[in-house]
């Protein structure tokens, strides 16, 4: 039974998972694994996972997995108080393959979710896994997978439960995307650091990026014209058409001149007033001191 659900993961969730993996307890049978709860909300055909927190767990020497339930509930209540719009939507586990323990953990989580949810039918619970082992198959990636557990069997009897994989998308709020861009610059520096950039520099960077994109588009158009074959990308052709249309209509010289003149006037006025305020504030200080 194919489920149309997609899972949209926010980058904060992935970063928290990596962080809790780095801080995992290094002893016992649970080494190299981190486990925790996912918070988010449900939309039509989409599960948005916006936050998560790690919880302590262990596997006893007899092979029984245990989770600290009180901890989980306390963290859940704390999270509810700060962000009431979120609810528990699943759990995460940093393993490469699903094991029998996952089944029991999933049971626990479905119990907890149904005890907290107000609806009568059980909302779908997602299991998110992150493979941190850098095995051969993953080729240096950190593959992220999401699963939904469903019943399956023959002749309307449920013989078994299967974890079905779901498509994963990365999405974020507007501010999160901006922050992610900034943080990703740290990937390229030697000390893995970034300094916060204000002022005109980000604009310069943005313009550089736009120039790169424009050059790429130009190259693509040239190639398509040279080969004279028409690939499936009529959508790109339409988009280019739209862009050129808007450019031609909106950037007509007289309209544009008016827009620029008016805005320039407004901005210079505001800038003048702001500087005036600063000057006045600077003047007040000697008066106060005297």
């Amino acid at each position, binding site marked *: 039974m194919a489920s149309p659900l997609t899972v949209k993961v926010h980058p904060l969730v992935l970063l928290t998972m990596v962080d809790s993996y*780095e801080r995992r307890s290094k002893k016992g049978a649970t080494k190299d694994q981190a486990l925790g709860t996912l918070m988010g909300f449900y939309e039509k055909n989409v599960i948005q996972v916006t936050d998560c927190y790690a919880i302590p767990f262990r596997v006893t020497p007899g092979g029984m997995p245990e989770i600290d339930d009180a901890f989980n509930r306390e963290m859940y209540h*704390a999270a509810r108080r700060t*962000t009431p719009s979120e609810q528990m939507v699943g759990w995460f586990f940093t393993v490469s393959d699903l094991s029998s323990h996952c089944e029991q953990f999933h049971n626990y989580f479905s119990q907890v979710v149904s005890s907290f949810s107000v609806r009568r039918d059980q909302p779908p619970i997602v299991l998110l896994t992150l493979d941190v082992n850098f095995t051969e198959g993953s080729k240096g990636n950190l593959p992220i997978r999401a699963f939904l557990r469903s019943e399956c069997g023959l002749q309307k009897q449920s013989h078994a439960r299967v974890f079905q994989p779901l498509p994963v998308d990365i999405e974020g709020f507007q501010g999160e995307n901006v922050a992610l861009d900034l943080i990703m610059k740290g990937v390229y520096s030697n000390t893995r650091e970034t300094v916060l950039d204000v002022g005109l520099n980000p604009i310069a960077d943005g313009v550089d990026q736009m120039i790169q994109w424009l050059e790429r588009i130009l190259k693509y158009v040239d190639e398509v014209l040279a080969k004279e074959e028409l690939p499936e990308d009529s959508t790109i052709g339409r988009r280019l058409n739209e862009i050129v249309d808007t450019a031609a209509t909106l950037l007509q010289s007289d309209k*544009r001149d008016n827009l620029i003149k008016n805005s320039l006037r407004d901005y210079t006025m505001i*800038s003048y007033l702001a500087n005036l305020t600063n000057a006045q504030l600077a003047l007040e200080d000697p008066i106060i001191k005297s």
Partner: protein
Amino acid sequence: MFRFTSFAIMADKIILNEAKVKTVQLDCLVVMKIIKHVDSEFYSGMSEVAGETCAGILTGLIAADDHRLEVTNCFPTPRSEVLIEGEEFSQGVLQNDDGKHTEITDMLKRFREMNIDYELVGFYQAHKFGACFTQEVIDSLVDYQTIFQDGVVIVYDPVRTRQGQVSLRAFRLTNKALELSISGDWSPEAVAAAKLTHETILEELPVVIKNSHLMNVMLSQLGLVRKTKPAPFLELGTRRSLEKSYSKYVNEKQRYDALLNSLIQKRQAENDQRAQRNEPPLSLDEIKRQLKVPQLLTRGGMMDIFLNASNAGAFANYASEVTNENIAKLFISESVANAVEESHTRA
């Protein structure tokens, strides 16, 4: 904002050492968490309703040899519920203070279980347009800095970030300001003796963001997977936020002016009063009554004036920076359009 009242009593006897920290280093996780908390509150519309801005606690550790404050994790503090009825409000706030305290200590205990650094190093708050200079922020900073000398407040400006530049700044009180706050004496004489201006109450610390290696791997992978959207700040229309900030700073400026004028008048009255005492007093009662009048009515004295001045300055700075950026954008678009026209006339 809550207060550690028991520690405030000890504060008189603490000798203030120089804060050893020169820069603040944030883990990328902290940046994302702060932004996510503030943005999701903005989405659900709560920031318009509640009285407090959304805030949270920072945890981490101090690297003494590098003079760095490393912030490795953070968590949001729940808001106190805003009750509309008048008398119940104050009681609710008092109970909430103690409740918040226990919640914070509980959370820190849980952090310790999960091997997360559990030492409090400061707090963060969200303020639009960067006008973060309120009395409660200063009070909280005083509390933090008397307990451990290196507490900071991180101010996040969601409006600026939405326009494309992440705006996270770290502040802490300067030593002189800290001494004055502890003694509670904000009269003009003490302030003049300490040579404080509204700019030197808070000092800003440079902020650096650091990733761990595994985070780098994850981030590079995210870079491949994400659909890149062009940054929103290249749009030309940002007038609405500018108007809001402009009107806000006009109000702030007026309040500041009014306070300043009243202060100056009172001081003049005091001076006249002292001149009069040299002459033989006609009736003692009248003079005693007059003596009481020139006291400063504002509780914080100079502090309020400074705060308003700093807020007005912050608004003005924001407005001027944004206008500069917009002027730059206008020139860019003009040159692009000129180039297009040239190519038209040529072809």
